[in-house]
């Protein structure tokens, strides 16, 4: 198996981008990554695009070929594939690109992730996101997507004494980080009180416990590590990749508070990288809701199960803590254009490992981990990156 | 003599209530005077996820919990209501499926204003008597509608009761039944109209009182009984006054009437009204008790029943489902705004 490196990254601003279309977003992120990698169209062996629900958000399926076309590659006839795994679509696209190079089939692959969520109304966006849950046995009965994560939170509070304040602190921390990220949807800090007092969406989660509805795109250029130095001085190696699945419905799982898909995907990635959780210097985790980040740091093995809330209290995961989490602002503050998220996480790790993260740059970060979840934990994909 | 009659029974009343005075306040009326005049203090309100089908299912499931009958032995289901959720698509099919009685089953929906449920009892009785089925289910249930501000708004409520009719383990034998029917337009709802219309005071003497009195008198003549022969008497109860007045006129006492009189606390449940009254009586009835019931449906007609409670009632697990008294007591009040939302008064699209 060949080693794979990231040689280029590209990101659009995340947010309510009323003047940008789905096509413009992905073309912008893609061309930024291609220019960053200093490659040309003819160097690209394949495209992998992650998008959760372009069909319902912008009435457009068949977006693999569309992305190739809007990126200016229609005359190159590049193989282009769309990858879907709900909110993990982006991370899965990264993994597909990674596997295609590691297998020896491709040398250079462009990975993209995109979602244009604000072209539908708010309640329709909620309905579309609920398709990531079990439509027949959860959503049909009135469970919303925030409601499903809220049920994880209620159980976590019951079993481990996690508090609403600890959940809120996740949002406060991620907004503080987002303030240093020029691409973030929210670039201003928020107070603990404002999170706790925010209007309830699904008890115990309030509006500021939830990631926003966002437009945005992200892109990467992946390259066989042996050829990476030809394009960049600072290639970032993917040293571990893991993926796992679980039941679509939360109620079908072994334990309500544990995302087993995270546990298994992490095990796979750690094993490949020959690392333990202690070796990770910083991480981007899937905080679509504040409780998501608490479960993530537990399930990734950073802290013991049930101690996630305490870890937040002890400021372990802040920018200057021992394990900074979501330096980009996370899904919470950076924004969560669903299909783009998993790709954007790798963009953030790459910027950090290159030392290009500006005011949010972590100190001595050598190894970073990205954790991307689909649905309430039915899909999880994890990547571990290291500077070469 | 072969015993045919009620094998088991169950009732359902939605949990929400609105007080008559709360409705009166919205329209600038004197609530206490209205309550006194109608003999109704509060009425049940269905939540947005309840309709005649769900109430019917809850009522028959309660009846099945009380006995050991296998639902596949049920040969017929007739659901009487003036608020079937579909104009075309039988409520009875939903009920049959929900209790596991399908597919070898006769089903039809009935409409005869407030007496459609008792008409269903007569149908089942006939089928059992003719040996065409072993058990039949008769249900009367409604989520009745009243136009905002109409006099009916103080009474139109929701609830229902179900009776399994058969000839084995009969808890109350139906000794006699008959009906009294004429063409009397006292109350109606035209097709595709949301709310009913009524003839005001015409609904009283020539309608309710004439039909119930004649039906009751004819029944006692046929059964060779007098009011004093009955432990309990149940009359259709569109308000708290009519059933008490008609009972007195016929020679019944309040002691005989009160167990089956629920309208002051739950309002008029239309097809469910006399049926819930009967369920309430069966909640407390003892072997040997004799029950007299006369329903009334606008349009107009009355169905009369003469019943005798048997020893089997002591073997029915009545405690396995909530009694009518428990259903009446388990309540939560709503304000007019919530009531309007729940009963779809605020519909727009």
């Amino acid at each position, binding site marked *: 198996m060949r080693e794979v490196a990231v040689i280029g990254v590209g990101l659009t601003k995340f947010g309510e981008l009323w003047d940008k279309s789905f096509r413009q977003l992905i073309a912008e992120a893609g061309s930024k990554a291609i220019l960053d990698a200093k490659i040309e169209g003819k160097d690209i062996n394949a495209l992998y695009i992650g998008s959760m629900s372009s069909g319902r958000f912008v009435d457009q399926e068949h977006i693999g070929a569309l992305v190739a076309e809007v990126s200016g590659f229609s005359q190159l006839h590049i193989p282009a594939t769309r990858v879907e795994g709900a909110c993990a679509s982006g991370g899965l696209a990264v993994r597909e690109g990674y596997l295609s190079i590691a297998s020896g089939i491709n040398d250079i692959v462009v990975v993209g992730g995109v979602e244009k969520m604000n072209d539908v109304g708010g309640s329709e966006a909620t309905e579309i996101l609920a398709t990531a849950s079990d439509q027949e046995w959860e*959503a049909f009965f009135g469970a919303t997507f925030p409601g499903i994560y809220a049920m994880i939170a209620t159980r976590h509070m*019951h079993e481990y004494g996690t508090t609403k304040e600890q959940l809120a602190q996740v949002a406060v921390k991620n907004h503080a980080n987002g303030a240093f990220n020029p691409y973030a949807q929210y670039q201003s800090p928020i107070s603990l009180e404002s999170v706790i007092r925010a209007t309830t969406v*699904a*008890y115990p989660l309030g509006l500021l416990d939830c990631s926003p509805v966002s437009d945005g795109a992200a892109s990467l250029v992946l390259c066989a590590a042996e050829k990476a130095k030809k394009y960049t001085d600072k290639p970032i190696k993917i040293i571990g990749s893991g993926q796992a699945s679980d039941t679509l*419905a939360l109620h079908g799982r072994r334990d309500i508070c544990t995302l087993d898909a995270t546990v298994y995907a992490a095990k796979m990635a750690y094993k490949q990288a020959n690392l333990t959780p202690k070796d990770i210097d910083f991480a981007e985790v899937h905080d679509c809701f504040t409780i998501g980040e608490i479960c993530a740091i537990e399930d990734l093995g950073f802290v013991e199960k049930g101690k996630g809330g305490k870890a937040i209290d002890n400021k372990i995961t802040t920018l200057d803590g021992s394990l900074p989490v979501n330096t980009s602002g996370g899904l919470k503050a950076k924004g969560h254009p669903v299909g783009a998220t998993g790709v954007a996480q790798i963009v953030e790790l790459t910027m950090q490992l290159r030392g290009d993260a500006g005011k949010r740059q972590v100190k001595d970060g050598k190894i970073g981990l990205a954790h991307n979840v689909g649905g309430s934990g039915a899909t999880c994909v994890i990547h571990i990156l290291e500077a070469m | 003599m072969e015993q045919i009659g009620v094998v088991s029974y169950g009732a359902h009343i939605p949990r929400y209530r609105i007080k008559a005075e709360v409705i009166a306040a919205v329209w600038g009326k004197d609530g206490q005077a209205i309550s006194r005049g109608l003999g109704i203090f509060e009425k049940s309100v269905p*939540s947005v996820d309840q309709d005649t*089908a769900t109430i019917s299912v*809850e009522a028959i499931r309660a009846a099945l919990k009380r006995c050991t009958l296998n639902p596949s032995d049920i040969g017929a289901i007739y659901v009487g209501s003036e608020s079937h959720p579909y104009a075309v698509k039988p409520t009875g099919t939903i009920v049959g499926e929900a209790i596991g009685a399908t597919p070898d089953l006769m089903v039809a929906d009935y409409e005869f204003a407030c007496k459609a449920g008792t008409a269903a009892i007569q149908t089942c009785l006939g089928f059992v008597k003719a040996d065409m089925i072993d058990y039949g289910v008769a249900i009367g249930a409604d989520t009745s509608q009243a136009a905002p501000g109409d006099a009916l708004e103080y009474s139109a409520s929701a609830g229902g009761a179900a009776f399994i009719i058969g000839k084995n383990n009969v808890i109350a034998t139906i000794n006699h039944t008959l009906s009294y029917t004429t063409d009397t337009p006292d109350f109606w709802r035209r097709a595709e109209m949301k709310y009913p219309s009524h003839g005001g005071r015409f609904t009283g003497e020539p309608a309710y009182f004439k039909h119930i009195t004649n039906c009751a008198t004819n029944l006692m003549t046929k059964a060779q009984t007098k009011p004093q022969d009955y432990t309990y008497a149940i009359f259709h109860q569109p308000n708290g006054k009519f059933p008490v007045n008609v009972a007195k006129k016929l020679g019944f006492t309040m002691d005989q009437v009160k167990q089956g009189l629920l309208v002051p606390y739950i309002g008029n449940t239309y097809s469910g009204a006399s049926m819930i009254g009967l369920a309430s009586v069966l909640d407390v009835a003892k072997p040997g008790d004799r029950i007299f019931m006369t329903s009334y449906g606008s349009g107009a007609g009355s169905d009369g029943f003469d019943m005798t409670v048997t020893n089997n009632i002591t073997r029915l697990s009545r405690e396995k489902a*909530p009694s009518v008294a428990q259903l009446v007591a388990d309540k939560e009040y709503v304000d007019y705004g919530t009531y309007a939302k729940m009963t779809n008064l605020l519909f727009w699209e």
Partner: protein
Amino acid sequence: MKEGVARFWREIPQRYNFMGNKCGTCERVFFPPRESCPYCRRKSIGNMKEIKLTGKGEVVTYTIIHVGPDDFEEQTPYPIAIIKLEEGPQITAQIVDCPLDEVKIGMKVESTFRKIQQDGHTGAIYYGYKFHKCYNNK
């Protein structure tokens, strides 16, 4: 009217009557029924037996939905819970007829038959299970 009715009609045995199934090898019960047992896999194929569940259980976790889908908007705020059924499977359903502050983990509940959704004002009505506190707390 926007939905095809068949996909809802197909689920009637589950949604009205809790028809689940049981692995003939390990005796684990599934709801909704599964084609095969995820624990016994090939040993369970052709050995899954249909069973009717009681519809009684206990609240494992819950939420109160304040921002609901369009079909549920007029019911907000409403509780949704994961319920562990007596026979073992867990399901997601709405809790009704219960003051919001009384919904608790560990609460014993039983099923009630309710309208779940309807396809607008002209389409079909879809019925199914919701849960309420057990009658007499049993």
